[in-house]
């Protein structure tokens, strides 16, 4: 069963155009021009119950806008959204009961009160039965070690503790769907690892559908079986992580240091994508050409001082998309 369905989703905002100069300022006092900004252009995807999906893209790609439409606090300009059978913006409060949301950058807990008070408040907000509340609290306390800070005011918690409390808070009402917006941001390595283990566990054991936005490539690699990559409001990739890994597992990077500095280095079968005085980075597909062939080519015209071959991780491809945009990538590296 598809728990989330998104079809031709679009969202544009009207942004006030600011005119420069004194005259412009006077003009905008009376009449202001607006420009249409398309945050989400045309996105379609569906997510099956129990999936864990990474929703990835550079800043401003339209991630948060999509998530906001899924939570119901933003109405799409056009297109369809359905979350657990409900159109979120039409039935915001009903949708709210089906979703749990964690924002790494902000907390849903009451800042000045002991952590436990926020949990009790959420229990009332979501009408969780006493029995279920106790069961959930026991489980979360055990896995997340909540007991060490339940009576501490939220403002005194460390970031790691606060995130643990926040994620527990988002799950108290047993939502079938969980949205995680940068859940590991700012955490130390150990805390990150704990958070990932927990996310994995609830996904496995409770069959909660998880949608994760993050800039942390380790989060994606370790957690997601599927990745939806968006850029400039459009979906550029949607598929299994394994495929991405295999595809880019074939890519290698050859780094050569030449004796003399050279302006230009051309190799057939490889692509020079970066150069710094006498050092060149060449990307090539392992299946199409071997490293030794490339090296042989280069030694014909240049003297090689040093060389290394690197296996690129997903991180490098994604960071390339972030910097250059998916459309600008050469065909050989597109997924």
């Amino acid at each position, binding site marked *: 069963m598809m728990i989330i369905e998104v079809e031709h989703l679009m969202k544009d*905002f*009207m942004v006030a155009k600011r005119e420069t100069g004194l005259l412009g300022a006077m003009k905008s006092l009376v009449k202001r021009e607006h420009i249409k900004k398309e*945050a989400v252009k045309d996105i379609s995807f569906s997510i099956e119950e129990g999936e864990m999906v990474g929703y990835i893209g550079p800043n401003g790609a339209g991630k948060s*806008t999509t998530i*906001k439409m899924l*939570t*119901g*606090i*933003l*109405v799409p300009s056009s297109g369809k959204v359905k979350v657990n059978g409900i159109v979120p*913006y039409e039935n*915001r*409060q*009903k*949708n*709210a*009961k089906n*979703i749990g*949301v964690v*924002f790494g950058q*902000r907390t*849903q807990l*009451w800042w*000045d*009160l002991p952590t436990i*008070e926020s949990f*009790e*408040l959420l229990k*009332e*907000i*979501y*009408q969780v039965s006493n029995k279920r509340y106790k069961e959930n609290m026991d489980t979360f306390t055990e896995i997340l070690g909540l007991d060490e800070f339940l009576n501490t*005011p939220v403002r005194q918690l460390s970031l790691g503790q606060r995130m643990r409390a926040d994620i527990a808070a988002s799950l108290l009402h047993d939502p079938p769907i969980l949205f995680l917006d940068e859940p590991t941001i700012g955490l130390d390595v150990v805390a990150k690892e704990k958070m990932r283990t927990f996310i994995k566990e609830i996904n496995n054991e409770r069959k909660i559908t998880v949608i994760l936005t993050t800039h942390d490539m380790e989060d994606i690699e370790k957690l997601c079986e599927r990745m939806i990559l968006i850029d400039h409001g459009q979906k550029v990739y949607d598929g299994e992580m394994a495929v991405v890994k295999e595809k880019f597992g074939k890519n290698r990077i050859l780094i050569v240091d030449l004796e003399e500095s050279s302006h230009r280095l051309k190799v057939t079968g490889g692509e020079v994508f970066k150069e710094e005085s006498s050092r060149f980075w060449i990307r090539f597909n392992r299946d199409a050409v071997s490293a030794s062939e490339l090296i042989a080519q280069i030694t014909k015209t240049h003297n090689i001082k040093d060389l290394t071959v690197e296996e690129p991780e997903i991180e490098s491809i994604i960071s390339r998309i972030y910097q250059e945009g998916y459309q600008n990538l050469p065909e050989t590296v597109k997924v």
Partner: protein
Amino acid sequence: MFRFRLYWTFTKKAFLRSAVYRFDVWSRLGSNLIFLLMWGSIWTALYAGREEAGGVSFEAMLTYIVVSQFLTGVNGAGTPLWDIQEKVRTGDISLELMRPFDVPLRYLFADFGSVAFYILTALLPLYTVLFIFMDLTLPDSWQTWVLFIISAFIGFLIRYCIEMSFGLLSFFLVETGGIVDIFYFAMSLLSGSVIPLWFFPGWLEKMALYLPFQGIYYIPNAIFIGEISGSAILLSLGIQLFWVGVCYLLLRLVWNRASHKVVVQGG
């Protein structure tokens, strides 16, 4: 369906939260007392030893000021205007849209909690002492006390609706300094909180009587000191009820527009 238990939980949690900020309670009480002394001395000087001015005895006037400061304390213990604006600015209020509750009501009930804490721990003890040791006019019948409490409560609701509406205007305006000024002007002068309406020049009094702000301080206060009495009390309560209805609709309108803006334009 009104989920009283849910909103009541907000009241309880807000009560607890107020207890965390004890210093805030004391400092607010301190400034309340300072303003009481200030207005007390100003009115003492204005009466200049006379027993009566404008048909109101000095004792009643002094009582008016004391009650007014008490009500200022009550009304000031809720979520203040700047805090609402801050919550709009940081997006906290927008995010509450994804919760299964009504946001304006949730803040109202939380305010009940903070106000109750402030009344019980600070205002009531202080003002009980003041009433015992100062020569003040107390209502002679228990009915008047009850009517005063009802009227003060309606006044609180009027003030809440207006303050929340003004605060939510931050959704539409980048700079809200002007709005804030209008609000505080209306709250201090037009409400009769420091100068009773009967001392206003005719045109201003008329204006104030046609506005909702008198329902916050002037009406409950005038009931307390007996300036409004008999069947006039019911009329005044009727006026207050009318205004609380209007202000509630205003709040609903502003809130609907604001949440509409959030969901359409992203806040």
